[in-house]
């Protein structure tokens, strides 16, 4: 293995004097800077890179382009890294996958000899009787088959990010066709973005031949286009959205026109043992040497089916690899350039020999005459004819037709073009010409308005001879281990068997045999599978068609895909940092952060019940409805009547869906005639706003719905001493005569114009103060300052929840679910059936006529249950049982410090819903007895609200 001193033609410079050290299976490996992990391992003598999916056969480097599954390893805990293209980095920990105990000596290799017991689809057939056998077997199969393991403890990568790009024309692939297309489009005035997965432009020119002058001129012509190197496209999505990964960067590119110039690729021939380490694609051999400076072997047999194979043989020999023979599968005679190598024309390759590495190949005349001939070699270069790498065109919706052994683009898709080998054009000058043509077309359409179509003519001359892949090896070699799908170990025999079993069209065949379902997603086997399917069905390949190509085309790390979703927007009230400084414990309420408590919720309850407390309720939804028909809108959306509500008055408001299910509750206030103010619960704020907008639009009502949630903050000052505190900072008349319960007033608090709602969610005299968000801190601190002499304290959501439970107020979503209606939830008194129309009217009318099935009731736990070893919240969600059967559930449960007992809300059958009745709650396998209590638990007459 030689490391050249000069820069490689592919843009990499390998510096053997600046080695990179990493470990493979714990052993140190030295790589030249710039090499891939796979190349460095190959250079150090490693030949077995992985074990195959099913039979655990040894596999080694094959395509050296990241297309095949032969080099997957776990690198630094990341499974299934394609090591042939992954750059070697200092200190990397590389380990093998899917083998035991080691890559070189894998005992599971025994499966290779058990193939009789493991036919295609064996997991549908074997080990299902008796039935207990399958779970055991499944566990075993899952353990021994497959790919790398995900490190569930791995920390997510935090350096992944996303970038959104926009361009008139996006060219995918910077080979000769792509560069020509880019230059033509840019010259025509379009903005052009070129995506290239390699670190250098040039495509196949970099590996085959050395037209540096040509590449130089192509590159400079495309100088106006923006070039992104190392950017691998994994999908084309609706609306000409391209998904690409550039290292840890996710690129989302919107292009008016896309030109797919992804080139072509070789695919494996079929013969016995066609997967042995040492058998490679000819392009892989060239890439290994010209990208990474590693020679693939010493003595090679070149297997080809077209004229270009001789040129590739010449290229391979220039790498210093001796050519033992060129096997040309086409009938007739051929001759090597200069007659340097023996040429076996009209021969096919029957089988390969070797246990864990290629030792020899056997060839025989294709017509079956003549003796078989064994040729010693350590490398087999499969120089098969290129097929278009057209998966992205597939994804974009292009249809294909099968012609001369290749799928060529047929029906046009607007905005998607193709050029070069991807479009079936293989001659270099034709590729350049086609690229220029497509580039000009795309620019015209991208900048102008027309929509071009995918060209159907192909400048490349129709190749002479038979097609590549299947038919080249005619008569078909009949070995047992002729792998079609390298990812999933599907052999040609398996395909034949599956078709014989009736899975004879390509999509069911794919699903049953799993051909093309592995990591390469059919890049190596898709076309061969179609051809075999046609062969065994005795029909045209074009009639068989292809399987559907879907993103991702290449493996993409989840961290990269998720990079624009790893942040979750956080909403903070204007007092967030004040709460934080006070040691608030946080509660996540949707996107909001709310203080759950400031340490001791029970003490906070006592403060409010006996003195005065202040809570930040800025998260409430705040909606203003203005206009001549504002009351009409509320009348139709809510259960109550609004038309009669006088300015300055406030009303509890409840909304139902059209199905009569409780949707949200809040407080509605009439600010003036035709102007209403509505609060909504924290989690429902946006939904309620959109609900009102929807119905305003539907009914064409003359009203405007304004979402003021972000613009206004709110705080609730509550407790018997509220009036004294508030009186210090406002000139509003707070007497019950001037400002009764419940009512709304507008006035200044601490010099800030505010809206005050006198309501009592926590059951004490209280005012909800709404002010512009920017003044929240000022009002809040002014109230705390004014309350100093009264022992004012902030309180959190937990204390509020305890106090609302003492008052028996339900929380929509907590105490109700998607089946709860207001009649059974105890809100039946609010429903005004005499209104002409409101949402949920019809279902509620019907519900009213039938006896209720269950009720939401308050309950108390007897004193003996007070010894619960866990918090009473643990009862929430527990079943109410009646004669051993579930009959309801507990929705809220807390210890009430005010009443010194456990209280809660529960859905119970009507028969159990009268006060003093007892029911059982199933908790941790035992029954806890509860007694129905009348609501509210605290201050039933509401005297404390009206003081």
């Amino acid at each position, binding site marked *: 293995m030689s490391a050249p001193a000069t820069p490689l033609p592919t843009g990499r410079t390998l510096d053997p004097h600046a080695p990179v050290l990493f470990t493979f299976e714990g052993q140190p490996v030295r790589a030249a800077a710039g090499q891939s992990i796979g190349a460095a391992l190959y250079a150090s003598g490693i030949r077995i890179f992985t074990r195959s999916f099913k039979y655990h056969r040894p596999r080694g480097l094959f395509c050296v382009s990241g297309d095949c599954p032969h080099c997957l390893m776990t690198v630094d805990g990341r499974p299934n890294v394609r090591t042939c293209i992954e750059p070697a980095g200092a200190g990397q920990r590389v380990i093998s996958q899917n083998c035991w105990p080691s890559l070189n000596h894998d005992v599971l290799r025994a499966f290779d000899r058990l193939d009789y017991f493991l036919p295609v689809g064996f997991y549908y057939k074997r080990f299902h009787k008796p039935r207990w056998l399958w779970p055991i077997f499944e566990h075993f199969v899952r353990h021994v088959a497959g790919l790398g393991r995900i490190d569930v403890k791995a920390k997510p990568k935090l350096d992944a*990010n*996303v*970038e*959104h*790009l*926009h361009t008139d024309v996006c060219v995918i692939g910077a080979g000769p066709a792509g560069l020509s297309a880019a230059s033509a489009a840019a010259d025509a005035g379009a*903005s052009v973005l070129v995506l290239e997965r390699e670190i250098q432009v040039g495509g196949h020119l970099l590996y085959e031949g050395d037209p540096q002058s040509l590449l130089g001129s192509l590159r400079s012509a495309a100088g106006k286009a923006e070039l992104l190197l190392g950017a691998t496209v994994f999908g084309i999505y609706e609306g000409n959205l391209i998904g690409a990964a550039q290292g840890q960067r996710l690129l*989302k590119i*919107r292009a008016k026109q896309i030109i797919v110039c992804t080139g072509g690729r070789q695919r494996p021939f079929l013969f016995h043992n066609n997967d042995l380490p040492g058998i490679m694609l000819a392009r892989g051999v060239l890439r290994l040497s010209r990208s990474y400076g590693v020679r693939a072997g010493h003595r090679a047999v070149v297997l080809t089916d077209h004229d270009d194979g001789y040129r590739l043989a010449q290229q391979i020999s220039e790498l210093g690899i001796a050519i033992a023979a060129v096997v040309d599968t086409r009938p007739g005679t051929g001759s090597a350039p200069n007659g340097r190598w023996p040429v076996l024309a009209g021969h096919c390759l029957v089988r390969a020999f070797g246990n864990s590495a290629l030792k020899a190949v056997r060839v025989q005349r294709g017509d079956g005459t003549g003796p078989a001939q064994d040729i010693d070699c350590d490398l087999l270069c499969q120089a098969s004819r290129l097929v278009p790498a057209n998966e992205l065109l597939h994804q974009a919706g292009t249809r294909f037709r099968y012609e001369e052994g290749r799928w060529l683009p047929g029906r046009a898709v607007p905005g998607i073009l193709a050029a070069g080998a991807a479009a079936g054009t293989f001659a270099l000058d034709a590729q350049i010409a086609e690229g220029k043509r497509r580039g000009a077309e795309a620019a015209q359409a991208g900048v102008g308005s027309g929509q071009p179509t995918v060209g159907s003519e192909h400048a490349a001359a129709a190749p002479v001879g038979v097609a590549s892949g299947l038919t080249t090896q005619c008569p078909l070699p009949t070995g047992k281990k002729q792998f079609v799908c390298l990812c999933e170990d599907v052999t040609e025999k398996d395909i034949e068997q599956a078709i014989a079993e009736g899975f004879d069209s390509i999509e069911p065949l794919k699903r049953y045999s799993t051909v093309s379902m592995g990591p390469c997603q059919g890049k190596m086997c898709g076309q061969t599978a179609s051809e075999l399917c046609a062969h065994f069905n005795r029909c045209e390949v074009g009639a068989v068609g292809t399987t559907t190509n879907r993103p991702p085309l290449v493996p993409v790390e989840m961290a990269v895909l998720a990079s*624009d*979703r790893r*942040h*979750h*927007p*956080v*909403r*903070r*009230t*204007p007092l*967030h*940092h004040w709460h934080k400084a006070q040691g608030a414990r946080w509660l996540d309420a949707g996107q*909001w952060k709310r203080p759950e408590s400031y340490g001791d919720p029970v003490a906070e309850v006592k403060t409010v019940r006996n003195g005065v407390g202040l809570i930040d309720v*800025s998260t409430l939804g705040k909606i*203003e409805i*203005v206009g001549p028909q504002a009351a009409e809108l509320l009348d139709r959306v809510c259960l109550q009547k609004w038309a009669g509500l006088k300015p300055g008055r406030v009303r509890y408001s409840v909304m139902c869906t059209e199905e009569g299910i409780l949707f949200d509750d809040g407080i509605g206030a009439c600010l003036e005639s035709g102007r209403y103010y509505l609060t909504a619960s924290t989690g429902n704020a946006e939904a309620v706003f959109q609900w009102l907008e929807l119905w305003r639009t539907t009914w064409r009502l003359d009203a*405007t719905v*304004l979402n*003021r*949630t*972000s*613009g*206004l903050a709110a705080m609730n000052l509550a407790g018997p001493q509220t009036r004294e505190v508030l009186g*210090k*900072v*406002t*000139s509003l008349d707070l007497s019950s005569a001037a400002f009764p319960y419940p009512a709304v007033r507008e006035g200044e608090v*601490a*010099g*800030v114009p505010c809206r005050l709602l006198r309501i009592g969610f926590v059951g004490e005299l209280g005012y909800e103060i709404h002010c*512009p*968000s*920017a*003044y*929240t*801190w*000022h*009002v809040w601190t*002014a109230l705390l300052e*004014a309350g100093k002499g009264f022992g004012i304290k902030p309180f959190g959501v937990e204390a509020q929840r305890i106090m609302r439970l003492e008052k028996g107020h339900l929380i929509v979503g907590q105490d109700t679910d998607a089946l709860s209606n207001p009649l059974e939830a105890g809100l039946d008194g609010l429903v005004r059936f005499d209104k002409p129309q409101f949402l949920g009217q019809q279902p509620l009318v019907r519900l009213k006529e039938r006896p209720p099935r269950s009720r939401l009731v308050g309950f108390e736990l007897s004193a003996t249950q007070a010894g619960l070893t866990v918090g009473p919240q643990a009862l929430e969600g527990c079943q109410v049982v009646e004669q051993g059967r579930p009959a309801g559930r507990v929705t809220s449960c807390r210890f009430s410090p005010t009443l010194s007992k456990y209280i809660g809300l529960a859905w119970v059958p009507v028969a159990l819903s009268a006060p003093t009745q007892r029911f059982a709650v199933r908790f941790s396998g035992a029954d806890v007895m509860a007694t129905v209590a009348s609501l509210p638990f605290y201050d039933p007459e509401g005297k404390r609200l009206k003081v």
Partner: protein
Amino acid sequence: MPTIATPLARTPLHDWHAAHRARFEARNGWQVPMVYSSPEGEAEEARRDVGVVDISALAKLSLRGKGLAGFIEKLSPYSAAAQPRDVANVRCPDPALACRLTDDHLLLLALTEAPLQPDSQNAKVLATDVTSAHAGFCLAGPRTEDLLRRLTALDVRKAAFPANSCAETSLAGVEALLVRTPELSVPAMRLYVPWDFAEYVWERLLEAGCNLGISPLGPEGLRLLTAS
């Protein structure tokens, strides 16, 4: 009633500014962070890479209703009229922007903190002061677009989103209004997000822009950019 300190409004990033040693100044009833280090230094950094200014205190007025038709008709969708005059009896100080959000919704954006008020009531126009509903940020500097394309799918290239245009879109996963302003010597963009998402978006801007050289910029530094 005891004497109470004159209320001073705070931007949603007040605590962030204080933690980053901003020098505050009272302007039109607002506590405005004027400068972090020096206006010249901040302007220099913005001129080189990109700076971000908290302009949440600048007055905003939402106008809705059929009474706006006469004004809105002259504006193409998603455009912003510079220096609008006499919109629904609102006296707009120079310079201001009137963003056409829908065919009956205008958002007036002032360049000072002084509240925008209609001179008289117009029954067909509903005016709402939304100054503290939308936090505002101004990005200024040559790498403004580079930063934005990390956070929004909107095409922010100048050709697609020229000066005096606006768009409602998602920015860092939050609903936002983007406005391209013409007034600076460097590319500039104004972003408006709901008040309570301000800190989150600000943090995301600084994080996404950290390898683009983003730095906070005070209004004084911004003025230097405007002048040059």
